[in-house]
């Protein structure tokens, strides 16, 4: 295996040759057919220009577009579907995924070149599909097939990262939620890993339903649900953009840009509640667009209302973002049309009511959302006043930086998007300003620099990342219109290369900034590094605790072991961030085990401690070992002192009950009076 992965250059060359050969053979076979085939319109009833797939939509209002979209099937729809380049691009996607898998293997075996292999692989997945989607030679059907192919290909990048079990941070809290539902047969079980996730049971309900009916386990059920939801997300996003621009090509390019957003490849591919929230939001948006086009048709209104209700109980931030967009759209509609009628006002109103009603169940989400925003605002004040330095971009909390070229492309991607937005806005104003939703989306895109600025803050970084992802729905369409506009100054032969290159840069930038470089690839254990901290010892402790101690015991431990104990171990570890009133991190940092530490354990009702000696071997990659509010969180300069972790040894009444290579479990019930 080492030999296979070592000589990466040879394999890259082999891939390029294979890729070229496949395309040559395929295009050779299909060229005769292509020359005979008549290039029909690209969508049913659309006034598309033949051969180019571009609509002449000047002066087309949304209502006009609606009347054309609803027309009977065209000649193309009644004839057989042509796959076009889909088979060849399916092969390039598969080759790219093989490289990604080899990169993960190289990461595990610490072979040099794993990073390069990863990028070669993921770009082999992205670029050929992107080029064909952008090409004006593609038909609408082919474009849709390729968008789905690309979406699934990028999803498999995440699945190949962790193909046999959950390893991503948020997946463990969802695991716990589903496990509790399966056991109790009830929703709303308190989750020791997450303060509010049990109040948004949409994803756990779907996964539990899938498990119960299909008989599959939690991991396959989870990845299937999210996989199907992502296909729906891509299709719904495409359909919304197609309704707005009335061209298959612009919609395809905008969907492509949407897939380049920082949270698409990894963060929103997790089996976590936001990953399901996005598809529901996109479908709701599509139904809302269709409803506005045909207000007297109740179908889409019903779908939109059901969608809003389902989204409200699935993910808080996505439901707020959707309702905010609907309200903004309503505002633009009122300004433009001077009336509330025939707009999205009803759906927006129902969304607001839905969210307010759900607050009766989930009022604690206000505190959950307020806390990080308050921290970020406080930090912003401190940074502006010079009290604390701003966060250094790309540097992780252990001091490592990704390679220079990766940082350069990340900056270039952000810069290109920032440059493109004004061009897109100008174009929208010139051509689409009668389209109220497009104007609303353009308004959202105007605010895009704000979440980028949050990346300069330690506490604002995650908010910025999540907000960027949500705003990309608007940004992607504006940016797509911008690149198409900008490409017009180029000779036609160069346009495809230009647009593909620009979007590839945005894609690389998104992957770079959306997921930490050490977390993208698999590899040996790192301290407090989420996916990179998943290994056998923590799992062994969790399974032992479940089998020997029973479920539901109170543990105090670090972030990594807490996840395993709460999911596989079925324990109730204390977590301040998940809503417990005590922060036990000081118990572990302290060099002595005295009355203060014992009192902290007593307040938390702690029965067992899990001490991972590896915490003393490095700085935490996520910025903290135990809780985000611990001493020196995000600013640790030295690892936890080894003697601080060893201080429980020999203390009378503290029983050392389990030891594996690096982890020790102590029973502290005798000192905290939590004896059974």
């Amino acid at each position, binding site marked *: 295996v080492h030999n296979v992965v070592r000589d990466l250059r040879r394999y890259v060359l082999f891939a390029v040759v294979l890729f070229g050969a496949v395309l040559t053979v395929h295009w050779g076979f299909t060229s005769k057919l292509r020359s005979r085939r008549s290039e029909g319109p690209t969508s049913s009833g659309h006034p598309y220009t033949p051969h180019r797939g571009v609509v002449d939509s000047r002066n087309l209002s949304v209502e006009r577009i609606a009347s054309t979209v609803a027309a009977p099937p065209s000649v193309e729809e009644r004839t*057989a579907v042509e796959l076009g380049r889909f088979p060849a691009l399916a092969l390039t996607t598969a080759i790219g995924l093989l490289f990604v898998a080899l990169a993960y293997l190289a990461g595990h075996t610490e072979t040099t070149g794993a990073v390069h292999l990863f990028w070669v692989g993921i770009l082999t997945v992205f670029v050929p599909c992107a080029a064909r989607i952008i090409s004006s030679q593609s038909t609408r059907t082919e474009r849709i097939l390729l968008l789905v192919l690309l979406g699934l290909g990028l999803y498999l990048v995440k699945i190949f990262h962790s193909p046999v079990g959950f390893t991503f941070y948020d997946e463990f809290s969802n695991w716990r939620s589903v496990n509790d539902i399966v056991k109790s047969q009830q929703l709303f079980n308190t989750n020791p890993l997450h303060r509010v996730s049990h109040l948004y049971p949409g994803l756990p309900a779907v996964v539990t339903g899938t498990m119960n009916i299909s008989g599959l386990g939690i991991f396959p059920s989870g990845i299937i649900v999210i996989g199907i939801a992502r296909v729906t997300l891509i299709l719904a996003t495409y359909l919304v953009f197609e309704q707005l621009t009335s061209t298959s090509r612009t919609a395809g390019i905008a969907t492509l840009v949407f897939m380049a957003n920082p949270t698409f490849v990894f963060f929103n591919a997790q089996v976590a509640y936001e990953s399901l929230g996005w598809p529901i939001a996109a479908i709701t948006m599509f139904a809302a667009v269709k409803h506005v086009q045909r207000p007297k048709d109740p179908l889409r209104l019903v779908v939109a209302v059901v969608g809003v209700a389902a989204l409200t109980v699935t993910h808080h931030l996505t439901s707020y973002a959707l309702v905010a967009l609907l309200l903004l759209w309503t505002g633009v509609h009122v300004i433009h049309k001077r009336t509330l009628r025939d707009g999205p006002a009803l759906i927006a109103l129902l969304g607001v009511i839905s969210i307010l009603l759900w607050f009766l169940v989930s009022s604690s989400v206000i505190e959950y959302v307020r806390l990080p925003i308050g921290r970020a605002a406080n930090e912003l004040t401190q940074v502006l006043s010079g009290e604390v330095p701003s966060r250094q971009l790309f540097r992780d909390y252990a001091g490592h930086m990704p390679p220079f070229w990766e940082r350069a492309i990340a900056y270039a991607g952000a810069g290109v998007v920032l440059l493109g937005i004004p061009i897109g806005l100008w174009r929208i104003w010139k051509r689409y300003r009668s389209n109220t939703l497009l104007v609303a989306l353009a308004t959202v895109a105007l605010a895009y620099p704000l979440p980028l600025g949050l990346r300069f803050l330690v506490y604002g970084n995650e908010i910025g990342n999540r907000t960027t992802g949500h705003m990309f729905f608007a940004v992607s369409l504006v940016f797509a219109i911008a690149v198409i506009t900008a490409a017009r100054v180029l000779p036609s032969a160069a346009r495809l290369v230009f647009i593909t290159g620009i979007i590839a840069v945005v894609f690389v930038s998104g992957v770079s900034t959306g997921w930490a470089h050490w977390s993208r690839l698999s590899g040996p254990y790192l301290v407090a590094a989420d996916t990179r901290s998943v290994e056998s010892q923590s799992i062994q402790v969790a399974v032992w605790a479940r089998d020997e101690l029973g479920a539901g015991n109170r543990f105090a431990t670090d972030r990594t072991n807490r996840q395993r104990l709460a999911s596989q171990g079925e324990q109730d570890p204390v977590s301040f961030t998940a809503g417990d009133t005590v922060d036990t991190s000081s118990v572990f940092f302290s060099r002595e085990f005295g009355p203060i530490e014992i009192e902290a354990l007593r307040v938390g009702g702690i029965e067992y401690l899990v001490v991972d000696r590896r915490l003393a071997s490095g700085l935490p990659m996520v910025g903290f070992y135990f809780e985000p509010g611990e001493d020196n969180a995000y600013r640790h300069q030295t690892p936890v002192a080894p003697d601080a972790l060893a201080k429980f040894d020999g203390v009378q009444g503290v029983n050392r009950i389990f*030891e594996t290579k690096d982890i020790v479990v102590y029973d502290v019930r005798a000192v905290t009076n939590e004896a059974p």
Partner: protein
Amino acid sequence: MKHLRSIDLVVVSAVTLLSFTVTIFGVDNTLVRATSGLPLVLLLPGYAALAALFPSRRFGAIERLVLSIGVSIAITILGGLLIHVTPWGLQHYSWVSLLGGLVLLGTAVAAVRRSDNFCLTMQSIRFKRVDAFVLGLALTVLVAGGAVAVYAAQYQYTPDYASLWMLPSEDVENSVRIGVRNGSWATTYRLRIRTGDETIREWSSLSLEEEERWEVTVSLPSEITEDNPVEALLYVEDHLVEPEFHVYWWFEGIKNADDISLSISFQWT
């Protein structure tokens, strides 16, 4: 193009009934359950609902697919909330009854409401031999990539390390349970149980196979005091200077001491 009035409703009903049957009768075939069960959760409720509520509407294929999946997921979420408040809770019977019932109801309503001149438009895909060959090749490469990914993932969970544990026995008074779970390599250990300087029991050559689990219950002598814990020290045979693992338990003193007795069990995990 084929004109088939309600073949879709027949297929939907058949899949639903199949899923209903295998769930109710507890058919233990994962392939059958998954094949029929996944559509019942993620596709059919929405499809049937759209067919029932809007029997004469023409959807594009993509729009129908998107709306069917989206409405199915929404129905499952909202249905989960509904089942939650019933006495039966979220279990496979209640799920399959709710979703299966909705699908069958939807298809029945759709069948009644569909007009005689309704026709289902189905598109065929023009498949050339070279397309089939290239897609087959793509699938092969994809499977190879998946195999490499699964192989690579094993590194994350290996090697498996040995562990030692000790807990007071709940079954036998004044005794402790001690367990050793071996790691990824067959190893010979030496296990010593002591209190203070006194050895209670010792296994000088404890050979365990890969991932073998060994457990013993040891009754404690009367000399146990609260000043010294009962300790278990596990040495690897070729390194007897320092224990590899060390666990202990503080007792408050043993009042009704028994003779040392042993109960040993082996288990492969």
